[in-house]
């Protein structure tokens, strides 16, 4: 478990910043040492955004080496595949949403869109576990990050970090209506 590396990826504007902070604070609430680093700047304007979180005693840099993430969380299919290819280690777990924000080459008809079938096939051949999270029922797409957070709690994907810890984190980060709505979605996906 030491170190335990989490690579989160998606498109600028999908709410990766809040998800990353909720996970980091959830790990801290469970009494585990952790650090993180997010992408900020130009890439946030509709580009690929990555957040890395590392926990355990033997961590020094917040950056994760190639192919050494225990989990990749993909908020969008193209970025899930990119994270799977670059960061996920053999035997790791990919948790992804069936959400597609077509990148420029796909919209211009120059390259093919990545489909869920592509992700499933590549996961099988790469020997990694894949968990697809269905968010079609979510009324507000901006709470899709809570579906991923709930899935982490439901399958105990970060050892030692419980549903309670993630809720402590959300209470640190949010208040009022925002907290209430996000907790509703989180709890829906966190319950077995």
């Amino acid at each position, binding site marked *: 478990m030491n170190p335990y590396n989490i690579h989160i990826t998606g498109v600028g504007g999908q709410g990766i910043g809040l998800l990353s902070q909720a996970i980091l604070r959830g790990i801290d609430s469970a009494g585990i040492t952790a650090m*993180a*680093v997010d992408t900020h700047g130009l890439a946030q304007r*509709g580009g690929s955004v990555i957040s890395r979180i590392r926990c355990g005693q*033997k961590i020094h*840099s917040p950056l994760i080496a*190639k192919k050494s993430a225990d989990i990749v969380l993909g908020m969008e299919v193209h970025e899930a595949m990119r994270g799977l290819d670059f960061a996920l280690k053999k035997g790791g777990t990919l948790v992804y949403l069936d959400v597609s924000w077509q990148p420029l080459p796909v919209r211009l008809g120059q390259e093919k869109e990545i489909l869920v079938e592509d992700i499933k096939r590549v996961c099988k051949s790469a020997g990694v576990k894949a968990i697809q999270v269905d968010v079609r029922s979510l009324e507000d*797409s901006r709470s899709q990050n809570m579906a991923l957070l709930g899935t982490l709690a439901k399958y105990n994907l970060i050892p030692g970090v419980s549903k309670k810890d993630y809720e402590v984190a959300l209470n640190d980060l949010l208040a009022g209506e925002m907290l209430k709505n996000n907790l509703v979605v989180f709890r829906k996906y966190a319950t077995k």
Partner: protein
Amino acid sequence: MKKLGEVLIQKGPFEEILMGNEALVRAMVETGTKVVTSYPGSPTPEIATGIQSIAKDKQPFYFEFSVNEKVATEVAFGSALNGNLSCVFYKSVGLNVALDTFVQLSLMNIIGGMVVVVGDDPGANSSQNEQDNRNVYKMSRVTVLEPSSPQEAYEYYIHAAALAVKEQTAVVLRLTTHVCHARQKIKFGVYDNAVPGKTQFNHENGPYIALTTMALDMKRKSIRKLDRSKQFIKDKGLNVQTLVKDNQGKGIITAGLTYLSVLDVLEDAHYKPNILKLGAVNPLEESSILSFLKRCDQVLVLEELDDILELQIKALAYDNGLKTKLIGKQIDEDFVGEYTPDKVKDKLAMVWPDLLDPGSINEPSLFKVPDRPAQMCPGCGHRSAFFAIKKALKNEDVTVADIGCHTLGYMPPYNIGEVLMCMGASSGMASGLSLFNDKKRVVAFLGDSTFFHAGLPGLINSIYNRHDITLIIMENGTTAMTGHQDHAGEQIPIESLLKGLGIESILSCDTYSQAKLTDLVKTSMAVKGISVVIAKHPCMLKFTRLSRKKPGYIQRHVSIDPKICNKTHDCVERFGCPTFVRNPDNSVDINLDLCIGDGSCKPSCPVEAIGFEKGAK
């Protein structure tokens, strides 16, 4: 909810998870920093976000976004001459803009003390280069501290402030992108209350006129000041040696984030070399380096970007007759990119093959994933502007870009902007390109924040030197790319400023009126001499975020009528809003997560198949 603005000014001591940039704000609060200035640029804007999260009446110091990094440095310097501890922060290339002022700082008796925080960007994540500003610090004779983590960023700011006040000088805190943006739990100190502002300027504390012979004496003083800071570096234990038994006579000298990459890689090493981590990268505190060199048979100087430490350490070893083998930059690639754990692992494996298990051969990628370059947001006024302006341009006309969100126009489908240098360079370059050039018209682009930052001199030059260019000012009312900071355009209307400069041909319209904008640009390009078109539309990302906060906000969307659409793809391919979804059967849909219902795409459809969703106005 833990509000950042409250966390940063609580009494303390306390522990909290913060970003490097936010930890710096707490350090400013605790050290009694009284004036803070900046111009926004990644990786440093989140420092300002932290400052502005503090309720105005509780902010313990004055803060402003100055018009550019040079002026920001001058405002901080002026207030420090009054006895106020002052701080200025900006990105790597911001130092180029501030250089004229920055190089003079070490000559001056800065009674209040000054901390200059500069965020370098190895790997050019959000910059036009990955310049290593340590080159500049040597020339400028300033002390430079380089933290490796957010905890150190907080601690080193406090050291930098202490040294700046003690030596009445400017001290640089050098950060890189992934130190600015990392988050970790940090131990903070105590803050009681704000210090009062001082106005103690007295020319007798000077001299403050560094001209001809006086400059030489002031330089002698700055050389002595720099030398004295070596003692400070030693007393504060900023250069840390980690000595291990079984080190096989090997040692590594490193600094900054690279140090953390080294520690990560060495977790799986067969043995551990000694490590000297330099917290102060200028000036080099020789005694700690010499004692380290003497302990090792061979030392690898492992530093990102340029060989600044390496060459000085080699000279030091030579001067002291040391036999220690010194290894540094060996191949071109050693000068390029960020020293991530992967890059450090490759370098260590090359220098000491027995140190690590042979890395797995670079496995081929599992899948070719399409690139995702940054994009102008859905509804962006610049997109409508580029779509309209492209119709006014002939193939051979030349378009010159500048720095801002509008730089993204260079990509397909617009391809507007064929050369880019730095902030405010477009009208100057356009003027040069327009000489001897009567067939092609040269069109320069300039954002409104960039206009005030450094765009004016080039524009004024094209007026009084009568250059034949068209300048298109992309006015969105904010400094959008870096996070919607405000700028001088709030108080100074650009159009009246241009009139005051004596420009006759000034046309302007909203960029959503695409047909009109096309005509205005055609007219403007036909004018002899300098002509300006102001292409206006508020930043839609900022506008949508504000409107969403209002009660009763309903999110509108456009929709495409499949019965009318004949799949010419003008919307998804030529207008290019990221909201459009291209289906396998070549039909086009709307991504409802992205569409903000602005409707600026409607004119792009030749058969008017785009409308607002039934029911939604």
